[in-house]
């Protein structure tokens, strides 16, 4: 997947696997599209790519025509685990110890089921391990049947964040919100069990109905 939300086929000879995709500057997401591709920019998928790359989206679950797919990511956006109906592959990225006076060389570990392969810049060395995470995620996949991506929950003041988002959306419709509006919003939400999206929807409904997220 590219930064603008367009994506290549998984059968693309240049970018059709995790490593070649990442090497080409793309972000790998298992969407189970059966080889489909799209050259059209897509705002939703572009936002997803941004989230993966900045570390706020640690994983993507999707339901393709052949089953469920899961991709999890390092905070840098590189794939850690790739689970498809055909199996699971885990990846870890380590910085190799470099000889003195030479720049350090990235080294890639790839785990497939119970074995893993270490790719050196000029060759491969087999090893073992790296199966646990894949099995855990595999169990999770079995319970999920709809597409969604899960966002990392930050330990920030989420109500403040929601209010800023309401301000932003209303400003996009030409309405500036002040402390009085915020008091009204607190009165509206008090005493109710609400999630982050509820908080935003209530504020938007109160002050700038119809204001979209973008």
């Amino acid at each position, binding site marked *: 997947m590219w930064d603008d939300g367009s994506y290549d086929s998984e059968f693309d000879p240049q970018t059709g696997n995790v490593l070649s995709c990442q090497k080409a500057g793309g972000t790998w997401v298992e969407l189970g599209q059966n080889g489909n591709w799209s050259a059209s920019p897509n705002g939703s998928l572009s936002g997803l790519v941004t989230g993966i790359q900045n570390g706020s989206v640690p994983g993507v679950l999707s339901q393709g025509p052949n089953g469920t797919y899961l991709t999890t990511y390092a905070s840098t956006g590189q794939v850690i685990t790739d689970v498809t109906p055909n199996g699971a592959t885990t990846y870890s990225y380590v910085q190799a110890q470099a000889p003195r006076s030479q720049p350090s060389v990235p080294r890639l570990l790839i785990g497939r089921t119970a074995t893993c392969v270490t790719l050196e810049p000029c060759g491969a060395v087999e090893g073992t391990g790296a199966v646990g995470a894949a099995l855990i995620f595999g169990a999770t996949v079995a*319970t999920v049947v709809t597409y969604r991506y899960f966002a990392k929950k930050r330990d920030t*003041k989420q109500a403040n964040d929601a209010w800023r988002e309401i301000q932003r959306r209303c400003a996009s419709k030409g309405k500036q919100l002040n402390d009085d509006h915020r008091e009204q919003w607190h009165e*509206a939400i*008090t005493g109710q069990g609400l*999630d982050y999206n509820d908080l935003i929807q209530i504020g938007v409904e109160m002050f700038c109905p119809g204001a979209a997220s973008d």
Partner: protein
Amino acid sequence: MDYRAKLQQAVNSLIGKRLWGCARATNMVMFQFGEARAITDQLGREKEVGEFALHVQCPWRIAVDDRVIVGSRDINYPADYSEGDEIPESFDWDKDRTRLDRLIDFFLHESTNLRVRDIKAGRAASLCIAVGENLYLDVFPNDSLPSEHWRLLEPGKKVPHFVAARIEP
């Protein structure tokens, strides 16, 4: 009047009021104090609120003597979590019921005499609210950002809210 004195004056209105409700809007917890009454909110919805509501966005805890019985970090655990359990990857405290929700419900349901006995406003907008004989609701801001830590309001009344945030030098 210095800031701490203003805080103290604002929260003194809770003394003698009964703590009876607590709801969670994402990770902001909203405690309800005083007589419960039904109101219609700005969106036309009926709901029950207290004479006062304390909306808390910073860390807090309820302790009995020296034992914490529920605190803000309990939000990070599923409702049925026990020490050492694996937390499911799918757990989402914004959507799912948490240990915090379970414990606060149990606390409010099982406790009697939850009237506010005393309140001390402390350093940097911290609060120590003594409830009943030996319960303490502690509120303690712990970030340096200028955003709101907590606010005290009187739902349904057109009274300005008291908002505690970082004091600028």
